[in-house]
Each structure stands twice: as C-alpha cells, then as structure tokens.
C-alpha cells in the first residue's frame, strides 16, 4: 500500500503517519527513513534520541538524505519516509549537491527514485509538507523549491492508494480509504500510557 500524508507544520502529520504504519498488515520489519541531514552537535544528539524513541515503537531507523531509490530493503518491510520537504531540500541545496542545471525534472527524478523504493517494500508511507498557503510572495530559489515540491506532491498523490491531509490533527481523506485497523489513540498517547 502506498500512502501520502500531507500537512502543515505541527499539524499532526507525523503522528498520524506512525499510527497508520502500525495499522498496516504484515509481519515484515518497520523501517523509518529519516531524511533530515544533521547539522551540528545538537541536531545529531536530537536525531539519536529520536532513533531510540522510534526503536521503542518498533521502528528501525535508516538515515537517507538523498536518492532513496538506492536503498535495498527487505521485500516485506513496512516503510515510513519522513519527510519529502527535507529530501527535496537536500537534493537542491544540500552539501555536495547538484548544480542549478540539475534542478530540471527534479520532481520526476525523485518520483522515480521513490517508485523504486515502493517496488522494493510491502508498504510505503511518505510524509510531505504543506508549505503553499502562507500567502507570502517568494522568488528565486525558494519559489523553485516550492514548485518542485508541489509537483512531486501531485505526482505522488496521483500514484498513491491513500492520500490524507492533516488539519489541526484531524485527518481529511483526499483519496482512498483508511484501513479499518487504524488505532484511534495517537502514538504519543499510547507511549504516555505505557510510561504510567
């Protein structure tokens, strides 16, 4: 199953995506593909902390900042990739990254890489970012980045079995239907209950 989860900053999209992954059928490993490139010691320690937290939730974390199509995963794996905004930014602006000339068709190239990733696993859930409603005018590289991410979102939404938009933590199903086994409580709530 291929799922796309979109939402603004702090809209609850990560939490929803984790719950969705936990609800999917299959006995394969749950893999979390982290796309945020660590800059500085603080970021590294935060990322390490997240690794441990996700391990407790049954996820193995794989760091992948670029070219997700190159990953070789177990065929029965249940994969959560977070997030597309970082992946696109890494491709465009990251260290040792391509020049502006290579930005052409970046959405198509990333979509092809994600298609390859999808072919190599049982379930793929991708978290992406809604950064298009700020009402502010951007120019130059920022506008190019926004266009490319929006195009990639549209390509993946066409391809996905399920597309869910998160607004104030509430899911708005844009396409497909949510699996019946979807847990109602959030992962954080469950975690807190377990801690008690």
């Amino acid at each position, binding site marked *: 199953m291929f799922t796309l989860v979109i939402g603004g900053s702090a809209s609850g999209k990560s939490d929803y995506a984790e719950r969705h992954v936990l609800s999917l059928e299959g006995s394969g490993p749950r893999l979390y593909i982290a796309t945020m490139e660590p800059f500085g010691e603080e970021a590294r320690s935060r990322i390490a902390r997240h690794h441990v937290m996700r391990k407790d939730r049954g996820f193995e974390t794989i760091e992948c900042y670029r070219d997700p199509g190159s990953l070789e995963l177990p065929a029965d794996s249940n994969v959560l990739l977070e997030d597309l905004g970082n992946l696109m930014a890494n491709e465009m602006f990251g260290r040792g990254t391509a020049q502006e000339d290579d930005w052409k068709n970046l959405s198509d190239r990333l979509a092809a890489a994600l298609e390859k990733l999808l072919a190599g696993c049982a379930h793929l859930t991708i978290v992406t970012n*809604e950064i*298009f*409603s700020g009402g502010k005018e951007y120019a130059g*590289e920022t506008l190019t980045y926004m266009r490319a991410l*929006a195009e990639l979102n*549209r390509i*993946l939404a*066409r391809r996905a079995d399920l597309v869910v938009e998160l607004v104030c933590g509430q899911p708005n199903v*844009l396409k497909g239907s949510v699996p019946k086994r979807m847990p109602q409580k959030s992962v954080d709530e469950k975690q807190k209950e377990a801690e008690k």
Partner: protein
Amino acid sequence: MIFVTGPLFAGKQEYIMQALGWDQDAFERLAVRDVQDLAAHTPEEELPSLADRLAEKKVVIATEVGGGVVPMDPDERRSRESAGRLSCLLAARADTVIRVCCGLPRVLKGEELRRETREQQAQERERMRREFSANVSHELKTPLTSINGFAELMSSGLCDEGKMIEFAGDIYRESQRLIALVNDIIRISELDEGAVQRIEEKVDLVQAAKDTINLLSPVADRRRISISMESPAADGRGISGSMESPVADGRSISGSMENPVKEGGSDPAVWVVGSEHLIREMFYNLCDNAVKYNRDGGSVLIKIWREGEAASVSFTDTGIGIPSDEQDRVFERFYRVDKSHSRTLGGTGLGLSIVKHAAQFHDASVEMESSLGKGTTITIRFPVNSDTASWN
C-alpha cells in the same frame, strides 16, 4: 459559478480544465484566476461588489492564503485579509465550491463537476464566434461609413478645393484606422488559432524597448510626454539610473525627436527566447497605450529587470488610470473603458488582447496595477531558462 480554492501549486487550473474538458482558450475566456491580486488592490468596502462581478464568470480560482505566520507588515497583512474575505464572499455566491490539494479535488459545496458535452462546447464556441463577428462588423463599419460619406460629398462636386483637401485627409485617417484594425484582427486570429510559428529567437528586451521609444517619440513629443527607460546596470545588480539621469550613463535613457535613442548603446542586454516580432508588437501596444491615455506633459517609464527565473518589463504611465472593477476586463477583445475617449484616440480595441495572447505564447505573465487619475503599470514577466540566464 464554480469556485476553486486550494494551496499554491496544488494544480487548481489543471484540475478544472481536465474536469470540464476545457482547452486553454476556453479557460482564458470563462475563468478568472489570481483573484488575490484583485483583492489586494480593492478597498474593503468594494469587495462585495467585486465578488458580484467575479461571480458572473463560470469559474473563479483563488489560492488559499491563510496559512503560515500572520505577516508583521501591515500592507502584507491587509492584502492577505482581503484575499481571505474575498474567498469567503465568492464561496457564498458559488453554486459549487471545490478545494484542490495535491491535484486531488474535494467538493465542499454543491455537486461533483460534470464534463461539458461536445455540444455545450460547440455552442459556447459558436456564441463567441458570433460575438466576435458582430464586434468586427461594428468596428469596420464605423470608419467605412465616414469614408463613404466624405467620398460621396467629394464626388457630388459641391465642395470647394479647401474642403476637398480636408475630406481627403479625413479619408486617409479613417483608412489608416481600417488598416490598423484589419492588421490587429489578422494578428489575434493567428494567435487564437495557434497559427503563429513558434520561433525561438534570442531577443534583447533592452533593444526592443529602445526601438519602441524611437517609434513613439514623435507622437509623445506632440503632447510633451517624455518616454524613459531603466535597464540593469552592467554588473547585473538591479536597476541603475533614473528618469532624471542624463542619457550619457547609457542605462537610463530618454527618447525624443530631437534626441532619439541611439542604436547599439552600451546598455547590457536582457535576453529572452521568443518571437522578436511579437515581443516588439507587445512593447509597441503597451507603450502606445501609455502615451495615448496619458495627460499632456506626463511621462512613460519602461523598466527592464531580471529577478530569479524571470526577465520583467514594466510600462508605467501618469495617465487617466483604469477603474478597479474594469481592470480584469481590459484584456478582452474590443473592450474599452471609455468608448468616447477611445474613438477620439483611435485605438482598435484589440491592443491589450494581443498583448495577453502574445504573452501566453511566450509563457509570460501579465500583471496590471492602476489607480484612477494617477496612472497604470503593466508588467510582463518572461520566463528565463538556464540558456538565457547564461547569456544574461
């Protein structure tokens, strides 16, 4: 009316065209987009009447602008609030409201869209064709009636020699109007039918603007209107010079009959790819309007600049301006804000429509800002690819 909203780049236009089975031409005729810009330039109390007028269109598209942090800048905040308010007013007036996210539609009000049948599309095309024919016939008839009247008087033998010369002059002027009108009709028909050959020439916007100034300076001089140009400085960092600056700096120039703009000056070129002929026609039409609708002793400023992935040209005049409720209509064929004024000034009513079509031909955008009694700025933004960027 169908109101379509959703985030920026969500695929709103593509969705509506696909859902209704429209081509680009149908979309341009029947839909209006970017209403946020209209909202930003409309006083709050006029927003309901703006919504009423927009609701006459078949489709209205507005980008959602409520997300993100509330802007600190008061102008930015006001324009965002106006856009949000206009969206609410439009949604209230709409039969159908659809939100598009990631290219996926969701009906918030009304029913799912149904593709227009071929018969409905053919009827709409036929209606447009009849309307265009009626307009063309009317526009052709007016100068022909004058020519016929003057020729009749002259052939009656009742005119003295002085009157004969005067009437001959009138016939000449009216026939010139006819020629201009027929040329514009041919041009717009070619653009409409996609009959304009897609030529990919390297076009220097600076040179095209200079040549336009030289062509129109004699007309402008007669009414003491100055035409100036500002273009990027040689180091490529923004615009250099000003209207008051002397010609000698090679970047800010003014043209007049006594002091025409020299060919091949030292101004750095700003390159785009397209049809040189069409770009020059757009420049001529915009500059010609800026002079025609200016006040005596006024000014026209042509600015050329590069910004990110675009090369832009703006034409600013100090003329009569266009009322806010008519700004979205002036690009329609034969639409005139003030018909009596246009009759005196002699436009064909097709100039801005040609500009709009020619801009679409180049994948360029056209924006207008106008204030009654103060003047108008029309900006064309041409896309710049990596090849043209390297020439620039």
